[in-house]
């Protein structure tokens, strides 16, 4: 009986572990998305701006003076404007983004239109984390099934621990070491792993697994869950009123201050303006409540709608006014999205995730130790697992290194009339090269040693090249007060030193013998 439980844990586990590994590794990098996004882009090397000090009316002028066309060739209306304000926590960006215009960003200090890169590392990490590898749907669905399997694994692991009464005594063999730390690390972080599994399955499989239940609950009217009324995941737009009389809208900065006065504790990250310069003008401010943990992060938005002509409050919703389901969903999402997390909680959460990560590496090595060496699955999974584990490390450090190193005109290249991104290409190429290298070399100890050394060197190059290319080296950015960029550089430097030391000190006894 116990053996059967153990076998199913092992079988499901080994099938999904590499996907989980990818998701977790890039997820940890995504926790630090704000810092990466400030670091990677020269345009975001600007001092922190208070939203009160941005001249919002001047910025809006930049939008209304340009004409844009949508896919059908129709003019985009100029009286509906959606802005994302610079918000480090919620959006991980320093710039004003215009949501209903394609790739339109504004500098908050000068209100000039700027063109950031199309490919950014922070967004790419997020893509890999959610399973959009090669932008394919197949991987998204595989990642969704992986999250279901993670739920299963945490349940069956818990049962195994309850039934078997493992002793956490000192271990002599490497196998025992791996088993002990896999068990302990993942037991203590079990609630978080379980929550990751549940929410991950909702994000990636939610739409694809809902047709039957939707059609059942709506009596066969529709099978698409997004078409059901009262969608609580997406806040509905205000209704559009046809412009009738031209009236000047109030100064947006004074409206912003007025909106802020209505709440004790608020941080706005979005402004939506309806019927701009019209008698029906309305301005909606959307935000979250930083001191209201667990119920104010992403689904349960706090907002206020002001009349654009006289500044009267038309509608107001606070986090505590949300329905029971909204609050429940929000508290589930709270620990996955980390929207409202400031610096130190983010770092603490990062450390927790790193301990899950170590537990996962232990699990992989444990499987390799326990498996019979002449089995087919062992022969396939051994090189594959090391490719994924070491490849993620090298490939992500290569992205950091090439970010400032590649000149602008070589960022894209053309093959078969299709524009490809050099960094993205390099990212996938590294996995392939490493796989070939492992096949030739066969000795995993030496491969690991060299990969650690290489990624250490790459991270060091990243710091140096950032200092030279952007003009903000460590000392300069510290003096100028760019704390995020300084910390990012410092962390990369420390990581590179740690990796190089690791590559020198690591002992061959921890590796499966070939």
């Amino acid at each position, binding site marked *: 009986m116990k053996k059967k439980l153990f076998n199913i844990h092992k079988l499901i586990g080994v099938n999904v572990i590499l996907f989980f590994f990818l998701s977790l590794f890039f997820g940890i990098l995504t926790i630090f998305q704000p810092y990466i996004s400030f670091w990677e882009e020269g345009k975001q090397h600007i001092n922190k701006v208070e939203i009160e000090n941005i001249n919002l009316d001047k910025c809006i002028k930049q939008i209304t003076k340009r004409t844009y066309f949508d896919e059908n060739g129709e003019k985009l209306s100029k009286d509906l404007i959606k802005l994302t304000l610079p918000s480090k926590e919620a959006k991980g960006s320093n710039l004003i983004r215009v949501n209903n215009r394609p790739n339109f960003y504004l500098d908050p200090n000068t209100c000039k239109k700027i063109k950031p890169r199309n490919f950014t590392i922070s967004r790419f990490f997020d893509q890999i984390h959610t399973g959009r590898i090669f932008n394919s749907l197949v991987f998204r669905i595989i990642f969704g099934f992986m999250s*279901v399997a993670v*739920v299963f694994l945490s349940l069956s692991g818990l*049962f195994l621990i309850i039934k078997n009464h493992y002793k956490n005594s000192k271990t002599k063999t490497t196998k025992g070491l791996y088993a002990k730390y896999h068990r302990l690390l993942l037991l203590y972080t079990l609630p978080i792993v379980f929550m990751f599994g549940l929410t991950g399955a909702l994000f990636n499989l939610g739409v694809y697994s809902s047709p*039957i239940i939707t059609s059942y*609950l709506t009596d066969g009217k529709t099978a698409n869950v997004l078409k059901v009324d*009262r969608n*609580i995941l997406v806040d509905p737009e205000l209704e559009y009123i046809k412009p009738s009389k031209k009236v000047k809208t109030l100064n947006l900065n004074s409206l912003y201050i007025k909106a802020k006065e209505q709440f004790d504790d608020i941080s706005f990250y979005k402004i939506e303006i309806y019927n701009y310069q019209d008698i029906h003008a309305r301005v909606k401010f959307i935000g979250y409540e930083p001191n209201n943990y667990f119920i104010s992060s992403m689904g349960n938005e706090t907002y206020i709608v002001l009349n654009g002509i006289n500044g009267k409050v038309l509608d107001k919703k606070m986090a505590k006014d949300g329905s029971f389901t909204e609050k429940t969903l929000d508290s589930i999402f709270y620990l996955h999205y980390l929207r409202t997390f400031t610096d130190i909680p983010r770092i603490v959460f990062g450390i927790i995730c790193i301990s899950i990560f170590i537990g996962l590496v232990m699990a992989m090595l444990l499987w390799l130790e326990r498996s019979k060496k002449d089995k087919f699955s062992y022969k396939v999974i051994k090189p594959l697992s090391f490719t994924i584990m070491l490849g993620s490390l090298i490939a992500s450090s290569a992205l950091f290194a090439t970010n400032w190193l590649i000149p602008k005109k070589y960022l894209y290249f053309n093959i078969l009339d299709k524009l490809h991104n050099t960094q993205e290409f390099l990212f996938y190429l590294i996995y392939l090269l490493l796989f070939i290298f492992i096949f030739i070399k066969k000795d995993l100890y030496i491969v690991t040693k060299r990969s650690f050394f290489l990624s250490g060197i790459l991270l060091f190059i990243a710091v140096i090249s950032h200092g030279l290319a952007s003009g903000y080296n460590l000392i300069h950015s510290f003096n100028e007060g760019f704390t995020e960029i300084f910390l990012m550089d410092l962390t990369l430097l420390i990581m590179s030193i740690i990796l190089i030391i690791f590559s020198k000190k690591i002992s061959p006894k921890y590796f499966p013998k070939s």
Partner: protein
Amino acid sequence: MNNIKNIFIKDTNNKLGAIRLSFGILGSLALAYLTIMLIAKNLNDSTFENIVIGIILLPCFWSIFGLWIVMSKTRFNAILKTIIPFIVLYTLVYIIG
């Protein structure tokens, strides 16, 4: 004869076997889906909220049913554990809906 014996008699080795695995994965998915349909039908919130709650609970029920079926003593037990709840749940869903 050997096949029938295989199904009914408690296996001595700890191999999982194709029957247990396929019923444990696919059968439990069907059971879990019917369960969330029942639960969502009996909630009082708006339709969208009911669906989202159901979908969130799906992985939980999937793994619980999966574990329950895979851990059965004989292969015949595993089949029974899938089919009987399936009939019960399906009838309930049919009657209520």
